[in-house]
């Protein structure tokens, strides 16, 4: 990224505005024109680059970009119509007829409605789940192909191709912004929420990836979840639960990494660094999440995050309640990762020995290829018990399994620390 603060502000403006403008244009010209809309947005950014580099960033930057993109879109439609004129009946007439001469929105207008609709188009049932989130990240959030590829550990060419296919599909089915109703609406909302959740978990990974992109992914996920939760047509207890979950985790993001990008475990985090206002938003959403007919995994995960957020220290955390919430979550998801987290919570409640016993049971059933998180949990608990040799062996195993550079750095540091303690105390 860039170190120039002014350039960083413009980059953030470009990213944010391109999502808003994409939504704004798609609503007016139809999701079937996705590819053209995207080109028009890029046209507007190039125009901004060429004008602003000389004259500076205008005060009404958002309105400037909107107007510029709309002009580019009209140009592109005219050009397309000119080309088409020779081949078939002219469509420009209808195109121009459906274009309302609306005013350009200013910075003050949040355009929430357009973004929300775009979000629901991205979750179109005709698209695959992995495509939906790619499309969301690109169009609603304005991430570049390269940023999406790095966030999802994918190749840029693969991301680009997924986008091309998605656009072709939307064009082929001539997708329009139409609000689904009844069951279709709640199904569509489920996939919107699932995609937002995936966006959040991708950004919230403990280490690895571009820190700036990761933090922005989480902030965007929170914004989108709140968008869904706030609108009368789309709000639901699950949407609030997801917004709560994201807010309660994201509030801790400044405390999760050191300045040089080293992960800080929950136990070692400086709780003064947690963002109180984002936490408060999380608690508010959690309150509103109550009253649904079903208890979703997001309700339970948000509850766990809230118990952590409310605790003054790691020791003074209500581990009984957390283990209970993990019990419910395990019953709901049957996920080994949940069971692993439950074992760690159990260690805090009943001691490292109890946690280890649970881990051993889990290790016997562990089917996932990646044993790294399991080995790291073993190492942590052995270390707490002063069993240095075992801790060292597990840190080494976790390090061996890790592929991510930042993760390797973290594990190597823990391994070195375990070794130096062993040497200092004369333990062999």
């Amino acid at each position: 990224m860039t170190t120039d603060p002014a350039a960083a502000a413009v980059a953030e403006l470009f990213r944010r505005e391109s999502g808003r403008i994409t939504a704004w244009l798609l609503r007016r010209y139809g999701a079937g024109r996705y590819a053209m809309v995207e080109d028009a947005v890029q046209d507007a950014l190039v125009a901004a680059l060429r004008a602003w580099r000389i004259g500076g960033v205008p005060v009404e930057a958002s309105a400037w970009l909107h107007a510029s993109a709309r002009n580019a879109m009209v140009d592109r439609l005219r050009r397309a119509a000119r080309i088409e004129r020779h081949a078939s009946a002219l469509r420009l007439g209808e195109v121009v007829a459906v274009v309302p001469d609306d005013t350009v929105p200013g910075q003050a207008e949040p355009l929430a409605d357009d973004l929300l609709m775009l979000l629901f188009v991205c979750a179109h049932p005709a698209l695959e789940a992995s495509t939906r989130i790619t499309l969301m990240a690109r169009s609603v959030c304005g991430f570049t192909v390269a940023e999406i590829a790095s966030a999802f550990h994918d190749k840029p060419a693969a991301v680009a191709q997924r986008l091309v296919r998605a656009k072709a599909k939307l064009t082929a089915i001539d997708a329009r912004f139409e609000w689904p109703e009844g069951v279709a609406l709640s199904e569509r909302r489920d996939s919107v929420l699932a995609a937002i959740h995936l966006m959040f978990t991708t950004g919230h990974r403990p280490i690895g990836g571009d820190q700036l992109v990761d933090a922005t992914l989480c902030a965007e996920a929170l914004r989108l979840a709140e968008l869904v939760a706030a609108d009368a047509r789309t709000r639901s207890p699950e949407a609030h639960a997801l917004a709560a979950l994201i807010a309660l985790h994201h509030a801790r993001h400044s405390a999760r990494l050191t300045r040089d990008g080293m992960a800080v475990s929950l136990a070692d985090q400086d709780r003064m660094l947690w963002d109180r206002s984002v936490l408060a938003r999380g608690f508010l959403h959690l309150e509103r999440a109550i009253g649904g007919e079903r208890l979703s995994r997001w309700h339970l995960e948000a509850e766990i995050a809230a118990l952590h957020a409310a605790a003054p220290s790691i020791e003074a955390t209500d581990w009984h309640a957390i283990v209970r919430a993990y019990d419910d979550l395990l019953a709901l998801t049957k996920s080994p990762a949940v069971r692993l987290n439950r074992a760690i919570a159990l260690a805090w409640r009943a001691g490292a020995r109890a946690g280890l016993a649970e881990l051993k049971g889990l290790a016997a059933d562990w089917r996932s290829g990646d044993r790294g998180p399991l080995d790291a949990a073993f190492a942590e608990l052995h270390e707490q018990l002063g069993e240095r040799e075992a801790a060292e062996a597990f840190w080494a195993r976790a390090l061996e399994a890790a592929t991510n550079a930042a993760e390797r750095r973290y594990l190597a540091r823990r391994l070195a620390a375990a070794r130096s303690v062993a040497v200092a105390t004369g333990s062999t």
Partner: protein
Amino acid sequence: MARYILFLHERPEAFARFSPAEMARIIGEYRAWAQSLRTRNALAGGEKLADDPGRVMRAKGSDVVVADGPYAESRELVGGYFIVIADSYDAAAALARDCPHLRYGGAIELRAIHELA
């Protein structure tokens, strides 16, 4: 001291391949260059020119004919200009040499403004 005008020749589509973050960075580079001139009192202005072809007007007999300007058919145009203050062509060229424009495929046409006083 004299004023020199820097015409920024460019192909607009040369910038189309950049990502938004790169574009923001490039804006920052131009602004930093202009700012460094400004602090030395060496910048007298600069503006973006519109991307239309412009007009060329000629007398034809007793009429005036207005036609599209020279950029109607070409892919390259003058995207804008800066005016710098220097005491020689060489000094002006030295200022222009650092302009980021040259790093992004553009050309700079440097002309001295003929000062009458």
